[in-house]
């Protein structure tokens, strides 16, 4: 039975064209991009091509892109780098939201606990959207950075980026966004959104794992969090991960080239799955904004049954891979902080699955899911002590 992979928000398969691009950098093009000989210069040139592709995807200029090891490092570099730079001037206040990825939340917590930062966590409404008035009133002359994720990993909800950027610009505060889930899946323009810094990860858009990028707007100076050589203008020292960077560049190029098709395709499948579930399964809830959201994510609550049990049956019986909450918290017994933040009751958080589509999924796969999902839910509700009796 072929795998039906519906967990693209966790990670994506690497596009074969990306793999082909990367392979020579493990064998013939192994030079260190910092070396002046021809092998080194070959690597250097190709890194610059990758940088240009990444920049083009987000309407940046290539010299505003720093390559990192992934989304978590980019988030750390942005937040810690801004704090290190500005806190000596008394700017020690960080504003973020309650629905950020742990790469942001735990970084901010660490700065508060151990380095004298203060933090404001913006609330979100039941759609997962922040309140712009709350943001405005939270910004003070001590604020060093505002960090709001562009699109949420569990809900797919897209924040009002242009408005947030405008507010930060007017107040003269840096605006960072964790755009790991956004790249290639929504219109993303660093100029239009007035972004100061943005974090990206290649493996979320058919690139390799272990490579990411941080966009840093020209004129913005942060402190590095690693010390070492002069790579990436000294902001991110460390020998270039040439295969990874080349792969990320190619993935970014393809993401831009295929944007419209991929958007339309995944949205159709996602909408089709949601429609069929709403028609064929009782007691379900659909989470996240209906209008401002990524095309390929569905967050669905199946009341009275627990998420992990559904996932296990989907995997065992249909070789179908989805997710409960986010992959990062799947090993954790806490209900998702994102679902709690949108005021979903605890027990419904535990009954929530995320299906996230990719370019290679098909309508037939959704049909296969719907061949077994209603039966799984029914079986689990039959053994649930909290399900209404009518299910028996």
């Amino acid at each position, binding site marked *: 039975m072929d795998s039906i992979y519906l967990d693209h928000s966790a990670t994506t398969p690497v596009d074969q064209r990306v793999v082909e691009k990367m392979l020579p950098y493990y064998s013939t093009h192994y030079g260190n991009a910092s070396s002046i000989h021809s092998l080194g210069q070959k690597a250097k040139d190709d890194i610059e091509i990758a940088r240009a592709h990444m920049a083009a995807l987000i309407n940046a200029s290539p010299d505003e892109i720093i390559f990192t090891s992934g989304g978590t490092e980019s988030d750390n570099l942005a937040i810690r780098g801004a704090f290190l730079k500005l806190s000596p001037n008394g700017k020690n206040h960080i504003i973020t939201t309650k629905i950020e990825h742990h790469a942001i939340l735990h970084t901010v917590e660490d700065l508060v606990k151990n380095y004298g930062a203060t933090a404001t966590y913006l609330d979100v409404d039941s759609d997962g959207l922040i309140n712009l008035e709350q943001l405005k009133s939270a910004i003070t002359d001590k604020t060093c950075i505002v960090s709001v994720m562009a699109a949420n990993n569990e809900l797919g909800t897209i924040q009002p980026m242009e408005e947030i950027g405008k507010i930060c610009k007017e107040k003269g505060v840096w605006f960072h966004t964790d755009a790991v889930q956004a790249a290639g899946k929504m219109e993303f323009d660093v100029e239009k959104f007035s972004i100061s810094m943005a974090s990206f990860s290649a493996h979320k858009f058919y690139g390799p794992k272990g490579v990411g990028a941080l966009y840093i707007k020209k004129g913005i100076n942060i402190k590095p969090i690693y010390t070492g050589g002069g790579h990436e203008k000294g902001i991110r020292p460390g020998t270039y991960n040439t295969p990874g960077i080349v792969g990320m560049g190619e993935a970014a190029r393809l993401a831009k080239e295929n944007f419209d098709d991929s958007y339309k395709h995944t949205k159709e499948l996602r909408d089709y799955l949601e429609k069929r579930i709403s028609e064929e399964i009782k007691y379900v809830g659909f989470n996240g904004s209906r209008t401002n959201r990524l095309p390929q994510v569905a967050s669905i609550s199946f009341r*009275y*049954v*627990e998420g*992990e*049990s559904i*996932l*296990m049956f989907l*995997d*065992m019986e249909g070789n179908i891979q989805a997710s409960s909450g986010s992959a990062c918290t799947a*090993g*954790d*017994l*806490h*209900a998702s902080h994102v679902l709690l933040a949108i005021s979903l*009751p*605890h*027990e419904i958080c*535990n*009954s929530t699955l995320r299906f996230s589509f990719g370019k290679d999924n098909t309508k037939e796969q959704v049909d296969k899911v719907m061949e077994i999902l209603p039966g799984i839910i029914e079986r689990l509700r*039959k*053994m*649930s*002590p*909290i*399900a209404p009796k009518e299910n028996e």
Partner: protein
Amino acid sequence: MPMYSDKVMEHFRNPRNVGEIDSPDGTGNVGNPVCGDQMTFYIKVDEDGIIRDVKYKTFGCGAAIAVSSMVSELALGKHIDEALKLTKKQVAEELGGLPPNKMHCSNLGTAALARAINDYKKKHGMPYEEIEDPEEEEHGH
């Protein structure tokens, strides 16, 4: 998928004794959907104190379902005082082990059964020991 033993997977796939008992001799409930797991056990006990029927309903993860199934198997045919001696460790061992962050499920199973037995004892004027809410102490994060 969590690293579950074959035995856990087998019980998860084919849970034994699922359901409710009409007019049970004892009912026990632990947990709640807020903490992620809830189990309700129902027992029928004969005049010699032997558990003649066990059923349960469970809201929970794969481990919680497998634990309920295993506890029901272990309890069936036992004297109530023997069944009260079942430990979470025993249940986990019978299941070929549980991942560390799922051990609390094992505790829920034995506690729900013990509460059903207590309910029976209470109805028959027999002395019994209260069973604490297991989830408070056992939810390892």
